[in-house]
C-alpha cells in the first residue's frame, strides 16, 4: 500500500478508534490517539519519499496525492511535533470529560493537516482544509458555552476564508481547466492581469485567515487560549502553519513568476499587514494577564513576521520565513505545553495569581526558558537565526521601515517574554502553591525534546537549511546557497553560529560555575520572603509580587496606538451578525455525532455535486 494513504488511513482509523476506545476507559482513547499519531510519524519518517504519487478516482475526476520537498518539510514538522504533543496529551487530558470526542477530533486534525500537505490538487486540498477547520472548531467548542461564541467567530472567519478559496479554485479551474496545483503554478503567468489580481486576492484572504494576518486575526487569540492546551500546541504551532504553507505556495511559486505590478503591490501590502500584525499583537500580548492569552497574541505576532518574510519574497526572506515557521511550531508548542503543565498542576494560568514555580517545576521552567529565549530571538537558540535572516533580507531588499516595524515588535516581545516567565515561574512564593509538584514525565519529556531541538537548530541550522533549500528549489526560487553553521546575506556579511554558541557556552559556563562554587559553603539559600523591604517585616497575607498592570508605564506610552481596538469593531459587527448566526448555533448542539454527521453530509454533497458546483 502506498505510504501516504497508509498515513491518512492510520490517522483516520486512529480517530475512529479513539472515539470508540473511550467506552473501555477514557485514558485509552488518548493512548490510541498517541499510538496512531506516533505510528503515522514512524511511517512518515521511514517509508515516504518525495516521489510517491497516488491517484484516487471518484466518479469523473481524480484526486491526486503526492509529496514534494516543500510538503515533506511541513509534514516532518507536523508529524514530529504532533507525535510529541499527543504523548503529552495523555497525561494532560487525564480525568477530563468527553475524551473520545476530543481525541478523535485531535487525531482528525492531524490527519487533515497531513492530507492538506499530501494534496496535489485543489479539490483534495480544499476537502482536507475543511475537515481541518471543522474538527478544530469542534475542539474549540469542547470546553463549553462561552467557547461556543469563540467557535462561532472562528467559524465565520474560516467560512470567509473557505469561500474565498472555493471561489479561487472555481475560477482557476475555469481559466486553466485543471485542478492540479502544479498546473496553476506553471500557467499562472499566462493569465490576464485582472484575473491574476483577483486570484491573488482570493488566495491571500483564504490563507491569511489561518495565518491570522492583521484584519483577519480576530478569532485567533481567544481560540488559541481557550482550547485545551495540548490542542493549542498544535493549533497555534501547526495548524496556523497550514496558512503559511498555502501562502508559501501562492506567494512564492505563483506570484513570484508574475509580471503583474498589482501583485507586487499586494505582496507589499501583505508584508506591511504582517508587520502591523506583529506590532499590534505584540502590544496586546504585553498587556495581557493570562499566560495563555499572552501566548496566543504572541502567536499572532510571530505569524506576522513569517508573513512578512514570505511576502518580501527574496531568497533569504523566504528561507527566514520557513525557518521561523518551523521554529515557531517548536517553541510555541513547547510554551503551550508548559502552560498546560502549569495549568494542570496549579489550576490557573492567571499571571497575577501564579508565582515562584521555578523551584516547584524546574524542568517545565527550563523548557519554557529555552523556548522564550528562542521566541525573543536571542542568540544562540534557533529563534535568533530566523530573526537574523529576516532582518538581513529586509535591509538588503531596501525595506527600511519594515525592519523598524519588525524590530519594534521584537523588542516589545522582550516585555511579554519576561512577563510570562516572571508571572508564572519567578517572584514571591505563594502559600497557595506550596504543594505543587513537577508535571509527570510524559509531559516533561516532550517539552524537553522540543526545547533541546531549539538548541540544536541554533547550533547547526544547516540541518534545517537543507530541506528548506530543497523546498524553495521546488517552489521555483532556484538554487539556494546554504552552509551548516554560517549564515550570510547577499551583501556578504556573515554570522557564524558555531562560534557564537561556543563563545556563549564557554563564558556562561565559567561564570555560572564561578558563582556556584565561590563561597559555596557560606552562601545562604533563603526563601523569597527574606528580601529587602526597607527593614519592615511583611505580614503573611501581604502581596509582595508586582503582578497587576506590570507594564503600566509602557501601556501609557502606547495608549494612542491602542485606543482603536480592532476587536471592538469586530465584536460590534459580530453582535450584529449574532441573530443571523443564531440558527447556525442551533445546529451545533454540542453533540459529537451531529457534527460528524454534518461534516460527512457536507463532504458527500461536495463530492456528489462537484460538477454542478465547480463547473
Amino acid at each position: 500500500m502506498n505510504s501516504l494513504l497508509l498515513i491518512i488511513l492510520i490517522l483516520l482509523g486512529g480517530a475512529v478508534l479513539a472515539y470508540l476506545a473511550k467506552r473501555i476507559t477514557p485514558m485509552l482513547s488518548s493512548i490510541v490517539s498517541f499510538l496512531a499519531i506516533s505510528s503515522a510519524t514512524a511511517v512518515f519518517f521511514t517509508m515516504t519519499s518525495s516521489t510517491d504519487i497516488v491517484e484516487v478516482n471518484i466518479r469523473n475526476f481524480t484526486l491526486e496525492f503526492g509529496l514534494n520537498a516543500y510538503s515533506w518539510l511541513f509534514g516532518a514538522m507536523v508529524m514530529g511535533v504532533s507525535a510529541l504533543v499527543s504523548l503529552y496529551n495523555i497525561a494532560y487530558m487525564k480525568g477530563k470529560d468527553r475524551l473520545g470526542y476530543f481525541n478523535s477530533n485531535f487525531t482528525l486534525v492531524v490527519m487533515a493537516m497531513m492530507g492538506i500537505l499530501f494534496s496535489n490538487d485543489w479539490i483534495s486540498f480544499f476537502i482536507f482544509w475543511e475537515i481541518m477547520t471543522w474538527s478544530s472548531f469542534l475542539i474549540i467548542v469542547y470546553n463549553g458555552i462561552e467557547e461556543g461564541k469563540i467557535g462561532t467567530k472562528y467559524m465565520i472567519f474560516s467560512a470567509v476564508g473557505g469561500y474565498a478559496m472555493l471561489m479561487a479554485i472555481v475560477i482557476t479551474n475555469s481559466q486553466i481547466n485543471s485542478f492540479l496545483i502544479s498546473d496553476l503554478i506553471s500557467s499562472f503567468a499566462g493569465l490576464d492581469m485582472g484575473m491574476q489580481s483577483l486570484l491573488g486576492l482570493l488566495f491571500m484572504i483564504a490563507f491569511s485567515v489561518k495565518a491570522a494576518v492583521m484584519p483577519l486575526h480576530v478569532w485567533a487569540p481567544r481560540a488559541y487560549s481557550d482550547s485545551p492546551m495540548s490542542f493549542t500546541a498544535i493549533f497555534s504551532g501547526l495548524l496556523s502553519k497550514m496558512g503559511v504553507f498555502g501562502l508559501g505556495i501562492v506567494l512564492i511559486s505563483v506570484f513570484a513568476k508574475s509580471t503583474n505590478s498589482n501583485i507586487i503591490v499586494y505582496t507589499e501590502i501583505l508584508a506591511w499587514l504582517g508587520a502591523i500584525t506583529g506590532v499590534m499583537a505584540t502590544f496586546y500580548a504585553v498587556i495581557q494577564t493570562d499566560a495563555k492569552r499572552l501566548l496566543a497574541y504572541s502567536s499572532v505576532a510571530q505569524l506576522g513576521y513569517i508573513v512578512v518574510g514570505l511576502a518580501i519574497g527574496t531568497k533569504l526572506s523566504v528561507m527566514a520565513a520557513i525557518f521561523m515557521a518551523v521554529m515557531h511550531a517548536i517553541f510555541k508548542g513547547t510554551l503551550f505545553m508548559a502552560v498546560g503543565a502549569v495549568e494542570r498542576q496549579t489550576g490557573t494560568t492567571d499571571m497575577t495569581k501564579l508565582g515562584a514555580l521555578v523551584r516547584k517545576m524546574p524542568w517545565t521552567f527550563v523548557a519554557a526558558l529555552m523556548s522564550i529565549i528562542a521566541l525573543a530571538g536571542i542568540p544562540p537558540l534557533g529563534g535568533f537565526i530566523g530573526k537574523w535572516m529576516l532582518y538581513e533580507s529586509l535591509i538588503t531588499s531596501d525595506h527600511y521601515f519594515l525592519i523598524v516595524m519588525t524590530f519594534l515588535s521584537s523588542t516589545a516581545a522582550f516585555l511579554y517574554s519576561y512577563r510570562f516567565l516572571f508571572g508564572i515561574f519567578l517572584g514571591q512564593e505563594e502559600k497557595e502553591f506550596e504543594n505543587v509538584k513537577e508535571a509527570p514525565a510524559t509531559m516533561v519529556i516532550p517539552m524537553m525534546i522540543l526545547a533541546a531541538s531549539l538548541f540544536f537548530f541554533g547550533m547547526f541550522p544547516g540541518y534545517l537549511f537543507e530541506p528548506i533549500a530543497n523546498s524553495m528549489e521546488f517552489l521555483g526560487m532556484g538554487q539556494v546557497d546554504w552552509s551548516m553553521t554560517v549564515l550570510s546575506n547577499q551583501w556578504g556579511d556573515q554570522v557564524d553560529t558555531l562560534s557564537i554558541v561556543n563563545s556563549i557556552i564557554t563564558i556562561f559556563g565559567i561564570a555560572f560555575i564561578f558563582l556556584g562554587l565561590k563561597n559555596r559553603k557560606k552562601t545562604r539559600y533563603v526563601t523569597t520572603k527574606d528580601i529587602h523591604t526597607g527593614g519592615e517585616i511583611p505580614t503573611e497575607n501581604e502581596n509582595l509580587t508586582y503582578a497587576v498592570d506590570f507594564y503600566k508605564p509602557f501601556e501609557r506610552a502606547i495608549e494612542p496606538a491602542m485606543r482603536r481596538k480592532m476587536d471592538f469593531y469586530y465584536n460590534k459587527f459580530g453582535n450584529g451578525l449574532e441573530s443571523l448566526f443564531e440558527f447556525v448555533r442551533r445546529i451545533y448542539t454540542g453533540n459529537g455525532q451531529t457534527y460528524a454527521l454534518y461534516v460527512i453530509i457536507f463532504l458527500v454533497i461536495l463530492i456528489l455535486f462537484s460538477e454542478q458546483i465547480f463547473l
Partner: protein
Amino acid sequence: MPNDKKSQKIVDIIQNAARKHSLFVLAYGTGCGAIEIPPTMTSRYDAERFGIRGMATPRQADVLLVTGYLATKTLKRVIRAYEQMQDPKYVIGFGSCTINGGMYWDSYNTIKLLDKYIPVDVYINGCMPRPEAVIEGFIELQGLIKDGKANGATKYKENIDWYRANQKKVIKNWNMPDYNW
C-alpha cells in the same frame, strides 16, 4: 591576638586594602544624626574622597551607620537590616545617644547602650558629631579594617544568643525570621 601586618597573608592584605578603601554605607537615617550625613557626603566635606558611598539596600552595604538614638521600633528594623547585610560588615555608632543614651537617658522608648544589641566597631561621640568627626570615625574604621581588627560581625555570630536575648528583652513581639548563621 597577633593580628598585625606580618602575620597576614598576601591575599588578606589585598582584601583588607580593598575593603578599607571601599566602604558602602547603608543609607538608613536611623536617628536625628542623619541631618549631618548630607553635609558629610556633599561638596563641602565630600566623604567620597575616602571611598565612602551610600548604598540603598543592606545586601550591597558594608557599613551600618547608626545615626543617633534608636527607638525600640527602629531597633527592630536596624537588627533586620544588619542581619541582611553580608560579611564582612561593620557598625559605626554615631553620637552620644548610641554610647550611653545621651540626653534621652530616661526616655521610655529609646535604647541606651547600642553595643548590647548589635556589635559596634567604632563610636563617634558628640551631639551631634560634626562632619569632620564623622569622617574621622570612618578613618578610624579604615585603620581597624586594614589591621583586620574590625571583627564585630564575628563577635555577633559567636555571641548570637546573648545578643538575641538582649534584643528580645526590648522588642516584645519578635516576629522576625530567625537567621541561622
